[in-house]
């Protein structure tokens, strides 16, 4: 698969950014028990399954007030 070989190195930076987003979201979800809506399980699943958009939606809409 030359296509995959060609694509792969280019994908790494994007992939790394997605991983950073997911890790940040998961860490935040685990440390903060309060969410504007939804519960912990829902946000964990969303952040891990929906690449990029999951964590962003969590940070923009789901994150509770800083206590």
């Amino acid at each position, binding site marked *: 698969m030359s*296509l995959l070989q060609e694509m792969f190195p*280019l994908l790494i930076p994007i992939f790394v950014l997605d991983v950073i987003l997911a890790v940040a979201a998961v860490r*935040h979800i685990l440390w903060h028990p309060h969410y504007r809506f939804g519960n912990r399980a829902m946000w964990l699943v969303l952040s891990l399954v929906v690449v*990029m958009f999951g964590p*962003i939606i969590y940070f923009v809409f789901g*994150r509770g007030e800083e206590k």
Partner: protein
Amino acid sequence: MKGYIAFIKKEFVENLKNYRFFILFTIFAIFGLSSAFLAKFTPEIIEALGAGFEATEEPVALDAWQQFYKNISGVGFSALIILFGSCMSSEYSKGTLLLLVTKGLARPAVILTKYTVAAVSMTVSFWVSFVGAYGYTDHLWPDTSLSYIVPSAFFMWMIGFLYLSILILGCVLFKQTFTSILFTGGIVALFSIFSMVRPLSALNPIVLASRNVDLISGKISITEFTVPFIISVVLSVVFLVAAISAFNKKQL
């Protein structure tokens, strides 16, 4: 001035802590990097999947830039507006500004600070995204040379300031995040509607965010950006001044 500096420090810390910088930066970076990537490989991936789709034309560097401007003006600026849409409403709803204003923090400094911080994060995110897109495009199409790539991005960047000025006015006028965002969206939509009206379309600031690829491809000349650019800068200042004077009369 001392109030402005003190408040700007507070705003930077706050935006780091509430992940606004992080989110905006990551969104811009991902979309900057992936625009060239998607332009290059989408046809090939579909072909490889055997969907019976034959790529009629080999994608070119211009397609990558097309994708970049589509992403930034769509997703990037939307994220910017949504993220900073709550910059005043969170202060209003909790009444945190009351103490600082009665301490002698000048009201214009509050607005200028909010604007500065939003503009700086937009600027950093945008140009990092641009550098990423440039690098990928250059790597994937090494033999292509296009002109006006940087000016084209510059115009896109400038309209970001206009969007932020409109947003800040919305944030001052309305207590709710959602209303402020809606206000901004409404005004931008108005610009888009006016850009369809013939005699005005050439003056409309929307040109700065919609004709970028035409500038790179040489379809239009850079002089056609002059008037929309000036109008955009003037409007940015007007909206910002309006926001400051509205906030001076705002009850906290």
